[in-house]
């Protein structure tokens, strides 16, 4: 009579150190091997879309910040571009440059959190603190311009709330010079570390077809070897003025599309963002940032789908306006919501420790998953 073994259901519950927020993963285990992963979300659902229907267009911006609270600047960027498309406003050149600079700084800050927490999920605690030390410098740059460190409400429909602080350009250049060697230090500590490579190579391999079919975008898609970046393939704002290249996963350590590739794409992207910031800081024109801000935002009846390259992936806003001051419907296509959907597909057959590594490598923020 065969030994009757029955699978163990392990709840990696809402309160778990490695779930990047309030997420419950229901793991079906056979010993340590995973049979299936069932994510349960909704613990952090704050009804953003219902709120947005009761707010005026400018009042929605503080709510948009709170979706992906690690990349608020870029959430605002997507929303503001969408409403400006609806209104048909053309913002002055200086505003475009400042938005690109702030967006790329926010990308570095968001990647630093992703890399830091990923190192901690694998067990190395020190890189987490190095990443947060550098991130604090970016946050103080933001604080200098708009006064807040995490939720800015800085991009407004048609312009910005404040102009740049007089010595912002100088301290931003200082930061770029200060931060470049630190990326190399991170590489020594984590990227080339043999134990880190053992833990991440050939783990959670995401083949390219399933990635596109599941709608995966951003660093996770580029990790699977597909050169797809909205800043180049569907250019918005003035990204076509800067030259930077798109890093993709080449499977240097394991197969293409494993956790290590997604991680290494993020490291290289920080490098590219530094290049963009330097170019943008040099070509920064003068001008008034609040000139194109309309007194009352009242777009015509219509709908628009604007999408931007959020640090986590493609962030899309589908805004329907019925001609009144409040938006009729805003649907947000959050990259983390989509990336969490693929967990079940890539976690099969791995071990419990790998689920944490995979969850860390797809880099989700629960604020954006639950909206």
């Amino acid at each position, binding site marked *: 009579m065969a030994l009757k073994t029955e699978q*163990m259901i*392990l709840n990696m519950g809402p309160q*778990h*150190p*490695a779930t990047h927020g309030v997420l419950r993963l229901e793991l079906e285990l056979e010993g*340590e091997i995973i049979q299936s992963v069932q994510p349960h979300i909704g613990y952090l659902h704050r009804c953003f879309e219902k709120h947005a229907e009761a707010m005026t267009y400018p009042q929605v911006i503080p709510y948009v910040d709170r979706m992906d609270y690690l990349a608020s600047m870029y959430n605002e960027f997507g929303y503001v571009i969408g409403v400006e498309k609806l209104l048909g406003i053309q913002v002055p050149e200086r505003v475009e440059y400042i938005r690109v600079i702030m967006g790329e700084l926010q990308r570095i800050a968001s990647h630093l959190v992703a890399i830091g927490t990923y*190192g*901690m*999920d*694998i*067990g*190395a*605690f*020190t890189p987490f*603190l*190095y990443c947060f*030390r550098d991130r604090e410098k970016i946050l103080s740059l933001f604080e200098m311009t708009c006064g807040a460190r995490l939720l800015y409400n800085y991009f407004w429909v048609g312009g910005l709330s404040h102009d740049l602080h007089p010595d912002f350009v100088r301290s931003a250049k200082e930061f770029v010079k200060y931060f470049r060697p630190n990326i190399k230090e991170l590489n020594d*500590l*984590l990227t080339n*570390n043999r*134990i*880190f490579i*053992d*833990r991440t190579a050939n783990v959670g391999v995401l083949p390219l077809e399933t990635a596109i079919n599941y709608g995966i975008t951003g660093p996770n898609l580029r990790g699977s070897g597909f050169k797809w970046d909205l800043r180049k393939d569907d250019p918005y704002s003035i990204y076509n003025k800067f030259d930077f290249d798109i890093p993709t996963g080449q499977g240097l350590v394991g197969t293409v599309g494993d956790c290590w590739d997604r991680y290494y794409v993020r490291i290289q992207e920080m490098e590219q963002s530094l290049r963009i910031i330097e170019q943008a800081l040099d070509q920064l024109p003068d001008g008034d940032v609040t000139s194109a801000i309309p007194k009352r935002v009242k777009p015509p009846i219509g709908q628009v789908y604007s999408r931007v390259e959020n640090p986590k992936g493609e962030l899309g806003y589908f805004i329907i306006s019925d001609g009144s001051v409040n938006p009729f419907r805003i649907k947000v296509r959050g990259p983390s919501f989509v990336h969490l959907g693929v967990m079940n597909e890539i976690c099969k057959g791995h*071990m*419990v*420790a*790998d689920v*944490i590594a995979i969850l860390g490598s797809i880099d989700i923020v629960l604020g954006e998953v639950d909206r």
Partner: protein
Amino acid sequence: MIYNFFYSITGSLLIADIIQSLLPLFIFILPFALFAVWLERKVSAHMQDRLGPMRVGSHGWLQTIADIMKLVQKEDIVATENDKPLFNIAPVLVFVGTYAAFAAIPFSSAYIGSNIDLGIFFIIAVSGFVVAGILMAGWSSNNKYSLLGAMRSAAQIISYEIPTILVIITIIMITGTLNLNTLSEMQTGHFWNWMILGGPQLGIVKFLLIPFMIIGFVIIYISTLAEVNRTPFDIPEAESELVSGYHTEYTGMKFAMFFLAEYANMFAVSAIVTVLFFGGYQSPIGYLGNLLHLKWLIPIEQLFWFTTKGIFFVFVQMWLRWTLPRLRVDQLMAACWKYLIPIAFVNLIIIGLITLL
């Protein structure tokens, strides 16, 4: 020597024996464990550009005592589902397994807990309690994570005993004694007489031994790291996966027992490594006592050298903890069975041949 000193005072064998076996525990190990906790927090802080505890006493030296007092007055939660006897014995077993190992370790020529002839054999046997304690803790706290943690740590400690024992056998082959005291005595003189540099006897054998001794040292250091559940092998209490493994459900004094046992175990393991390879309590550069002809000064100097070497190895363990990520369970097993054990065997054979010369 200390033994007959107490014997002369108290006149009865039993009391002298009890005092002597308790002496290392209260004089040395408990204070050391408190110091090690503070050291770990300061080392990890400065390695991460932080300051670590600064508020309780200047530079936070009272922090650990504050921690212990906090833990003592914390409520000792025993959940209804836990099976009580196992739950309460587990920390005691882990505590006993760690502290019993100190009985056979020579702190200085004047002082050794009990100068038994099979010193190192006793230490390996007694540290088996720790595994039983951890399994009991994992099973009795009736929590899936603790069970997983306990299973992993049992597999890890048992499989890493083998490379440790293999390397110990190589040392015993060369020196011929199990008794740690005589082993330390053999490594007198300056640091080139230490076992890591080929041991006391001169000649071609010494130079042939050096490379294999270094390999042996690296193997035993790695495998003792695994036995103490320190990074990169701290899988049983992997914070990011198993919340904190077998001692998740423990609170108050029981958790303090696990906590102190872990740090004491760290020192015990580095003490074994110093005695086997780095000349136990022998000083690398001769004794001040000889120069000044003060005979009583030598044991104190030896105690000083022993603790500095021990603390250096504890520092290296901490240094590793704050640098390296964690291995997965199957990689851990692969590292032990595919890498450490074969190399230890080859090392054993080669050293065996060399000693025949």
